[in-house]
């Protein structure tokens, strides 16, 4: 079972529909027991970091998410929530991946939000399993005003005024800053790759993901 964490925001349906197009049913839930028992967990999210963290807190999901051992995929704001902090409202996040999310700077001549299709660049020598079958330089769809820095956990970066993390993985915790559910065939492939990942009980995955 694939759990889609219902963090109270709108715009969650498109993730569920993207799974349906791949032949998989996702269960929208805020129940910690259901989430903990899922084969895989997706943490979607749009809107502001402080609001999203408050919603997770109110639903009693902070420790639940931190304790997950199965593959977890954060999407957009859901990816940023995996990091330590966000400059947005100076908010402490889940702290599963090192780094602070910072705002794009419109004074640098950038249009903000970063909205539209931009290129993925794979980082590291061997592509992460999430990028299996994805061409270098493939375009995916972004909508965000804050971005996570490139770090040792970055598996694909993107460039918009600065390089930032587009796809991140640390152990079983993964995240996409872009919207795979709205990124055409490339996004569908990445979601499919996530669904195809072995579960965390498989030590080979842990080795592969953590190196």
């Amino acid at each position, binding site marked *: 079972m694939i759990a889609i964490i219902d963090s109270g925001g709108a*715009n969650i*349906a498109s993730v569920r529909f993207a799974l349906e197009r791949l032949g998989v049913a996702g269960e929208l839930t805020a129940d910690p027991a259901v989430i903990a028992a899922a084969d895989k967990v997706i943490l979607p999210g749009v*809107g502001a970091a402080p609001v999203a963290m408050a919603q997770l807190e109110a639903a009693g999901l902070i420790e639940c998410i931190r304790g997950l051992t199965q593959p977890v995929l954060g999407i957009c704001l859901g990816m940023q929530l995996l990091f330590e902090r966000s400059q947005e409202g100076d908010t402490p996040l889940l702290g599963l991946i090192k780094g602070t999310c910072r705002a794009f700077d*419109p004074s640098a001549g950038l249009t903000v939000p970063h909205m539209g299709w931009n290129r993925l660049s794979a980082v590291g020598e061997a592509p992460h399993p999430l990028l299996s079958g994805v061409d270098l330089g493939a375009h995916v769809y972004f*909508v965000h*005003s804050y971005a996570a820095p490139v770090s040792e956990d970055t598996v694909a970066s993107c460039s918009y005024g600065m390089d930032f993390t587009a796809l991140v993985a640390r152990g079983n915790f993964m995240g996409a800053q872009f*919207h795979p559910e709205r990124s055409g065939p490339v996004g569908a492939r990445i979601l499919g790759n996530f669904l195809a990942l072995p579960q965390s009980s498989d030590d080979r995955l842990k080795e592969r993901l953590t190196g």
Partner: protein
Amino acid sequence: MLTKRIIACLDVRDGRVVKGVQFRNHRDMGDILELAQRYADEGVDELVFYDITASSDGRVVDKSWVNNVARRINIPFCVAGGIRSIDDARAILNDGADKISVNSPALERPEFISELAEAFGTQCVVVGIDSRLETKDDGSDKYVVYQYTGDETKTISSKRDTVAWAAEAERRGAGEIVLNCMNNDGVKRGYDLTQLRLIREAVTIPVIASGGAGDYAHFADLFETTGIDGGLAASVFHSGQIPIPSLKRFLQDRDIEVRL
């Protein structure tokens, strides 16, 4: 590099896609789902569904097709037309739309933009602006915002200056502006580059150009001379006059970054 977006606008009336000239004489162009799927397959970057009857009739868009579109296509889409309350917007976003666009209701009550941004985040909130060039009594020209443009018998000037309104929309939390240049709409003589440059300079959020595209070169002119983020068109795409794949190859040959 962020690509320039090619956006197809599907004007919807009574569940069908229609298109008129300068907002008049609407002609049936086809089935919503069929057209949406065709555009996604052809590589359009985004779709806008605009219920042109809703705003002036006081109706909200019929939601059944929003959900069907969200299930079917895997590119972003925006829904516009008659969204007057937070609940209207929430229903459409919950049905799977990525963005909602407001126009006349925001002119009636500008704080509506702030409320939408607060509830859903600025990235979901598009403000559509219908703007027309007018000559004032002293003979000088200015751009003025119009409202209720979905119905020609109800269309009126809001008396607002377009540049000032765009800036206010941004300040209130709009994440994107779609500027429809009414003088150019449907007449295929090219986008209103002068006006678009004015708006581009007035805000830092993305601005999408609408109204006037009739040829491949019009898109190249737009992207080469204005800094505008996307070009929206309807009839030239629906009729097959400009196929999306050939337009993108044309732009790529001109060294304009596009998604192929």
